[in-house]
C-alpha cells in the first residue's frame, strides 16, 4: 500500500494536519502568527546549510527553525517591537537561505520544492520521519495541555498555580520547530504558517471550548489535505498551495455559516 506515491502523500499530509491542528490553535490564541512565519522562513536557510554540510534536510531545517524560534522568543521577552523584529528576522532568514543555496557548488537545487512543498515526492523514509515528528508534537501538546492553556490565559495565573510559563513557551517553541521540519515537504516554507493558522481560525467559528477547537482544527486540516490532493490530481495544480486553498475555502464557509447562524439566533 505504501508503495503508491499518492497513498504516501495522503498519509504524510494527514498526520501533519492532525499535529498542526492543536498547535495552530495555540498560535492563534497567543497571537504567534508572524512568529510561525519567521520560524518557517528560516527553514530555507536550514535547507541550504543541510545541503552544504550534507546532512539530513530534516535535521538542518529543524535546528535552524529552533534557533530562529528561540531568538525570536528571547527578543520578545526583552520587549522588542515584535512586528518589526519578526519582519526583519523572517525575511532576512528567507533571503539568506535563498542566497546561500546559490553558493552551493555542484548542487542544482529545485527551490520550488522547498518553498511550496513536494508532497507527491514523499518517500517511505520521509513518511516515517514525518509521522514520528507529528506524533512527537501531538504528544508534547497533549501532555502539557492544561499548563499550556493556563499559561496562554495568563502567565501570572499560571505562576500562582506552580506552572512555569517559560517552560510552556519552550514546549511550543520546540513543537513549532519540529512542525516546520516535517511540514516543509507538505506545503513548503512559505505556506507552513497557513497550515497552522487557517484550520484553527476556521475551527474557531464552530467550537465552543478549547478542546473542541483543537479537534476541529485537526479535522479541517485533514479535510484540506484530502481535498487539496484531489484538486491537485484533477486540475494538475501544485499540491501545497492547493491544500491551503481548500483550507481557505473551509474558513470562508465556517465564517459565513457562523455569521448567518448568529444573525438568525440574534433575532
Amino acid at each position, binding site marked *: 500500500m505504501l508503495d503508491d506515491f499518492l497513498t504516501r502523500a495522503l498519509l504524510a499530509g494527514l498526520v501533519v494536519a492532525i499535529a498542526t491542528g492543536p498547535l495552530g490553535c495555540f498560535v492563534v490564541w497567543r497571537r504567534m502568527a508572524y512568529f510561525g512565519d519567521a520560524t518557517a522562513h528560516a527553514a530555507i536557510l536550514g535547507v541550504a546549510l543541510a545541503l552544504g554540510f550534507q546532512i539530513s534536510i530534516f535535521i538542518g531545517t529543524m535546528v535552524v527553525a529552533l534557533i530562529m524560534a528561540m531568538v525570536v522568543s528571547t527578543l520578545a521577552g526583552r520587549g522588542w517591537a515584535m512586528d518589526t523584529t519578526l519582519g526583519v528576522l523572517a525575511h532576512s532568514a528567507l533571503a539568506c537561505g535563498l542566497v546561500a543555496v546559490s553558493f552551493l557548488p555542484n548542487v542544482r537545487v529545485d527551490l520550488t520544492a522547498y518553498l511550496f512543498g513536494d508532497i507527491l515526492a514523499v518517500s517511505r523514509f520521509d513518511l516515517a520521519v514525518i509521522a514520528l515528528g507529528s506524533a512527537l508534537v501531538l504528544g508534547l501538546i497533549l501532555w502539557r495541555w492544561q499548563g499550556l492553556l493556563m499559561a*496562554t490565559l495568563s502567565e501570572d495565573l499560571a505562576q*500562582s498555580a506552580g506552572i512555569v510559563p517559560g517552560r510552556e513557551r519552550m514546549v511550543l517553541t520546540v513543537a513549532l520547530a519540529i512542525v516546520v521540519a516535517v511540514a516543509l515537504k507538505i506545503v513548503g516554507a512559505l505556506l507552513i504558517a497557513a497550515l497552522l493558522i487557517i484550520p484553527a481560525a476556521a475551527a474557531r467559528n464552530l467550537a465552543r471550548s478549547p478542546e473542541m477547537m483543537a479537534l476541529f482544527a485537526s479535522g479541517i486540516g485533514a479535510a484540506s489535505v484530502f481535498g487539496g490532493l484531489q484538486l491537485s490530481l484533477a486540475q494538475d495544480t501544485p499540491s501545497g498551495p492547493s491544500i491551503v486553498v481548500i483550507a481557505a475555502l473551509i474558513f470562508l464557509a465556517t465564517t459565513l455559516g457562523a455569521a448567518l447562524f448568529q444573525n438568525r439566533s440574534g433575532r
Partner: protein
Amino acid sequence: MSLITAQGVSVRYDGRRVLFDIDFQIDRGEIVTIVGPNGSGKTSFLRVLLGVVAPEKGRIHWAKGLRIGYVPQRLHLDPGLPMPVARFLSLPTRQSAQAVAEVLERVGVPDVARQNMATLSGGQFQRVLLARALLTRPDILMLDEPTAGLDQPGVAAFYRLIEDVRREMNCAVLSVSHDLHVVMSASDRVICINGHICCEGAPQVVRDAPEYRALFGLGTGGALALYQHSHDHVHDENCDHDHDHAKDHAHHAG
C-alpha cells in the same frame, strides 16, 4: 508560622526601583489590604509574593506546600479562544461537574457554567475568577483590585462574600486596592504603600495617619463613606495593638 514572610525586599523594573525595604508577613486567617496610589508598586508587591517577579534584594519565604488562590485584576481573553466558565474552572486541575456547580453556587452565580467567559458581566466575571481560586483550596487568597469596575453595592457584596469565604475556609486574604474608601472594613490590617511601606494598621488608623493623608489628600472629605459593618467598629476600637503598630511605622516612614 506565617504563610508568607518578606524581609527587606526591593524590586527593580528596567533599572527603576519600584519597591524597597519591604518587611511583611501574613498569617492564616488574616485579612490584609494593601492600598497605594497608582504607580506605588502595589501590584509589583503582589507579583513578588506570587513568585512571578524575583526581588532584587531581600528574601521571601513561603510556607511549605503553600497554595495560593490568585484573583487577577482582569484577564484578557483572546476572542480566538472559546472558554466556557466550567472549562475555565477546570484550570489548572480538572474539576467534576458537581464541584463546579457547588463553587458557582457559593460565589452567587449558579447559572453561568455553560456560558462563554466573554459574555459575563464585570461582576459575574470577578466571581468566576474567585470561584477558580477557591477550587484550588487556597491557604491564601490574593486579590488584585478585585472590585475595579464594580458599582458600590457590587463592591460591598463582593467583600462580604470574601469575608464569608475566609471564615469558611480559614484562609488568609491579601488584597490590593487603590482606594482606602472601598477597602474591606473587615481588614485586620491595612498597609499603605508608596514604594515602601508608609504606614500600617487597622483601617481607621491608616485613614487618619498623616502619611496616608499626604499621599491621598483629604480627597473626598467624607463624601464617600468607608464601607463598614457595625460589628467592625467595636472590633477596631478594641484593637489597641494595631494603633501602636501604625505609630511605629509612621515614625519610620517620616
